[in-house]
């Protein structure tokens, strides 16, 4: 297991390096003169040169890349040209919105998808299974923003139970913060669940027909016991994989949901900074998100090794 974990760690670090290079090239090298972009088309040449010099943007690109990476490793993500706020502060302020939103959305999706998908697999070929498959199919077709709007109209406007949007900070009122997160989490979770149900269903279906589930029954388990104790344990492998792959979807979903419910999250910050041509802020924040996605997949790989002895031995 240790060798397996080390190998995966090396892979993780390699992936982060390649990603950082790709982002740097896409944003800096391919984007043109950063100082000119930041200042806009009316800026004078002197102003552009002054800004470029102040931020080290006149140095060769490899040097700039090296500085960016070494600063990041020391926790310095750069700062906004306009407000001079450090990117680290900008990001941490937004995480208290985005992290609970994304994690609760994913958790809700799993809590719904695992039992429902298992039930759908057990009832394949029966009306109840077909109805669930249909609902999941509809859920996949529904765009996440539309689900958000519908929920907000129902619970926010019609019933008036929850705010239709906006944000109350945790420090101000934890209950208020939770109330503003309920509908966004619900929209995100339901859409995640719709996708995950399909994968859980097919993973369980596949496992149900495996010889070892039959063996479990042959030595005394009922069909349900065999499915729950042997089947789900084995179906966990493909389900974990899918969850890892869905992380990127999840982040995409939070961007949209933060817009729909006007939440001051990370995604909205990035969009605002793209519009404001804050190259450094965008570059560092996107890098952080990519590191997060790669990290989740690293954790998934480790989980795979924990769940499946064949995987950890293969290393």
């Amino acid at each position, binding site marked *: 297991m240790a060798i397996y974990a080390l190998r995966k760690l090396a892979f993780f670090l390699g992936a982060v390096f390649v990603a950082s290079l790709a982002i740097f090239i896409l944003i800096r090298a391919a984007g043109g003169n950063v100082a000119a972009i930041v200042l806009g088309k009316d800026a004078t040449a002197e102003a552009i040169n002054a800004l470029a010099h102040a931020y080290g943007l006149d140095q060769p690109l490899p040097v700039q890349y090296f500085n960016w990476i070494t600063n990041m490793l020391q926790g310095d993500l750069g700062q906004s040209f306009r407000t001079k706020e450090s990117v680290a502060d900008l990001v941490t302020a937004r995480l208290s919105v985005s992290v609970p939103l994304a994690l609760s959305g994913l958790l809700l999706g799993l809590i719904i998808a695992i039992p429902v998908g298992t039930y759908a697999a057990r009832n394949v*070929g029966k009306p109840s299974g077909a109805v669930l498959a249909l609902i999941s199919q509809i859920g996949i077709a529904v765009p996440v923003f539309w689900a958000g709007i519908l929920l907000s109209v129902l619970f926010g406007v019609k019933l008036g139970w929850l705010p239709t949007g906006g944000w109350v900070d945790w420090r101000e009122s934890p209950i208020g913060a939770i109330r503003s997160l309920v509908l966004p989490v619900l929209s995100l979770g339901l859409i995640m669940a719709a996708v995950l149900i399909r994968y859980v269903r097919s993973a369980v279906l596949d496992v149900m027909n495996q*010889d070892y589930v039959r063996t479990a029954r*042959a*030595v005394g388990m*009922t069909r349900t016991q065999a499915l729950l104790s042997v089947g789900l*344990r084995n179906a966990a492998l493909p389900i974990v994989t899918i969850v890892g792959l869905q992380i990127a979807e999840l982040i995409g979903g939070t961007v949209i949901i933060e817009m729909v419910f006007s939440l001051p999250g990370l995604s909205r910050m990035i969009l605002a900074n793209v519009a404001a041509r804050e190259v450094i802020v965008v570059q560092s924040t996107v890098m952080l998100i990519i590191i997060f996605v790669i990290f989740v997949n690293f954790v998934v790989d480790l989980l795979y090794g924990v769940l499946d002895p*064949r995987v950890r031995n293969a290393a």
Partner: protein
Amino acid sequence: MTSAKPHAIEVKDLVVSNGDVTAVRGVSFTIPQGGRMGLVGESGSGKSMTALALMGLLPMGWNTHGNILHDGVDLVTQSDKALSSRRGRTLSMVFQDPLSSLNPVRRVGDQISSVIRRHTGADKRVAEAQTIELIKQMNLPRPEQLVRAYPHEISGGQRQRIMIAMALACYPQLIIADEPTTALDVTVQKQVLRLLNGAVRDRGSALLMITHDLPIIAAMCDTVAVMYAGRIVEIGPVQEVFRNPRHHYTRGLLDSQPTMDNIALDGSSRLVSIPGMVPPLHSLPTGCAFNPRCPAASDKCRETMPELGTDGINAACWHPIQPAGEVAAQ
């Protein structure tokens, strides 16, 4: 009044079907306590479906009719829950492919001891001690280490011994072995069979051995039933059936077994095969299902299905082969 010793299993008119497709068409046989029956036939003859029906482990969509009397109950009428309390305890099964049949993510020792705990209520430590003991009986090396191995870490022969240990853990009245050595290397087949043979004998269990390998039947069983297209076409004591087969299909099976006599290394093999193929279940010929492949088929065979036991002969055939002795006497 003394009642006769109950049978390990008594199967009456077993029919296994899925919609219009019938895989087993009225099979009856009895295995006494401690008896050993072989079930032979080509792939698709209904052997495995018969076995799965006895266990109540048919795939989704398949239904069982008839009677399966075992341990005082008719298994056909039992719920999955009631059956599950018997499976692994009074009747159990060894499957063909031990790699796919063992749970890949659980240590083999845990897989065996959980069976013991489930059926005997023994606590963890007792069950683990019994597991070690069982593994020793299976002639497996270093039992204390082996219990901690995962199925993929041990050899095919070892895996099948683990399967056998699981099946035998609770001293079942009947063990069904479905091609238990087909997936193994030839070199270990014999060892595993010898072990299964001895372990079944030690426990006094009855055995239903499913195989297409006739020498295995000859070595391990006292009766043999030959299946073709979902029916038993011949049944009787092994020596009698193998020496003097009465059904042309049995004859054909015996003739197509390679022996040192009929394999010629120069390529001029005298190995005979039965012409044609097993008919698909949804389009069986009328009359005797074997008639298109049978050398002795007559119009009667094409019209009417022969039954087992007509004229006191345990072969479902209108033109049974005359035993060699009788021919000579005529």
